């Protein structure tokens, strides 16, 4: 597999969430020239339709459970879950802070590492040749399975193994996206800098790095929710029992299904918070640019 095709591949894959993301969720697809499903989002129905759908699902769910007598292990009633959210709220906050903290530390580490590696790879051909296949392989491999490795290396009583898992998970999209941005200099800018007799350093400073910024931010936006997912899943592989993931599995093991779902709901909220933060960061940084990287 050629490295180049592979890279398009990996970023294309990551982009599935990316392209549909901004316009679809934010409902603000009007600004960009992004083609695709979100173009059809217009007017009040953008908000109304999903809200109605969401309420309908909850109502049907409640009815199926209470009237239809669906057993709780299959699906507890929304009211039961809500009750548990109330009862467990302090614990939810505490465990969410642990998992969120791991995700955040890993996200920052992985982001910095991914961007630095991509810049290094863009400058030194040898580095690109060596790093690219490893990152591509990492994108196909279940990285969370590395959790036990880090646990044996760093010990099971610290948060480091999980943070490292998150870091590795985050590096992949950030590296792929940044590397792509650094490669995608428009030919006209290339020529212009030659015509201006710019030095290599000026070329990097004036054209290449600023041009890659939207791609860097896209990488961050894609990595942010992935960091939360990785932080939660890493908890299923043992180690400290102080995060959301551990609470879900221990509640499920104790047949406290409504409680487990309460922690699932908290995980979803945490994931959304990271996603929206990533989206916001991307929007803020690239607000003056047409099109953007996606």
């Amino acid at each position, binding site marked *: 597999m050629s490295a180049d095709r592979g890279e398009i591949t990996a970023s294309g894959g990551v982009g599935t969430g990316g392209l549909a993301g901004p316009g679809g969720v934010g409902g603000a697809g009007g600004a960009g020239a992004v083609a695709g499903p979100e173009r059809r989002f217009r007017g009040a129905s953008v908000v109304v339709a999903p809200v109605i759908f969401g309420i309908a699902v909850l109502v049907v769910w409640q009815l199926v459970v209470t009237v239809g007598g669906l057993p709780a292990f299959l699906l507890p009633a929304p009211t039961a879950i809500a009750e548990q959210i109330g009862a467990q709220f302090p614990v939810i906050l505490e465990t969410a802070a642990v998992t969120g903290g791991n995700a955040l530390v890993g996200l920052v580490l992985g982001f910095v590492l991914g961007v630095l590696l991509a810049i290094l790879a863009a400058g030194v051909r040898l580095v690109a040749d060596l790093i690219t296949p490893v990152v591509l392989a990492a994108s196909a491999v279940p990285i969370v399975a590395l959790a036990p490795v880090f646990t044996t290396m760093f010990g099971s009583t610290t948060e480091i193994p999980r943070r490292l898992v998150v870091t590795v998970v985050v590096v992949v999209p950030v590296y792929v996206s940044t590397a792509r941005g650094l490669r995608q200099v428009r030919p*006209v800018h290339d*020529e*212009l800098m030659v*015509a*201006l*007799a710019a030095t290599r350093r000026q070329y990097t400073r004036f054209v290449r790095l600023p*041009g890659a*910024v939207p791609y860097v931010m896209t990488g961050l936006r894609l990595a942010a929710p992935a960091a939360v997912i990785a932080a939660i899943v890493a908890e299923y592989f043992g180690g400290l029992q102080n995060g959301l993931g551990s609470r879900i599995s221990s509640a499920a093991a104790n047949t406290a299904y409504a409680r487990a779902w309460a922690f699932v709901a908290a995980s979803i909220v945490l994931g959304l918070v990271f996603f929206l933060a990533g989206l916001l960061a991307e929007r803020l940084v690239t607000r003056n640019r*047409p099109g953007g990287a996606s």
Partner: protein
Amino acid sequence: MTATGTDAVELQGVDKTFGSVWALAGVDLTIGAGEFVSLIGPSGCGKSTLLRVVADLEEPTAGSVAVTGTSARQARLDQRYGIAFQQAGLLDWRTVVENVELPLQVHGVGKAERRRRAVELLELVGLAEFAGSRPAELSGGMQQRVAIARALAPSPRLLLMDEPFGALDEMTRERMQAELLRIAGETGAAVLFVTHSIPEAVVLSDRVVVMSPRPGRITEVVGGRRPPVSGDDRAADTLDPDAVEDVRETAAFFEAVTAVREALRKGAATDGPAA
């Protein structure tokens, strides 16, 4: 000989081959100081390649190239020419004025000085009020004017333009032509202008250089109908926009257009049925 007296471009026996493709064959061309010369011809006739050779973006396979009295490479390093492409190629993340400053920034001009010069140039192209805007907020014609201002930033004696109005609609295009003539008159820079459009070449140029492909070569040089500029009186508005409009309606204009068209047809005929 003073700097302004030197020919802007002097090409002798320039050949350029890309592998087995003969892009330019034995091109001789001299552009005097302040002269406006257009290159016209069908796709693949090497007109863009010729401009790129002058800009030192391509190296000629054979022949000699002098730009403002020095080598093409030295002219590029010294910023003796300014260049504009078909795409404006502005940097999206910089404001309009910062884009105009770019060539000066690359060459280490101080912040205050380059800002002063950039504002001056934006006034010249009539975009002073958009200095703080982002390129994306500007229309295609406005972006191209910013690109021209950028090309003019180092006060070059030569302006190289590769189909700069090619992507614009006809109305904008004619307005930009008048604008360019005014700017060329005010700065006194020589212009080498690549275009597909016969009327555009005629109305802008002192001379229209007609080229034909396979191999790319100059087949004929036709006199253009560049409207006269009132000499040294640069303080006043030296070119009335109406003057350009008037030129388009003169018999001499149509004659020149016909002459260029004939020359192009002849070039195509010698080239055989492939054209």
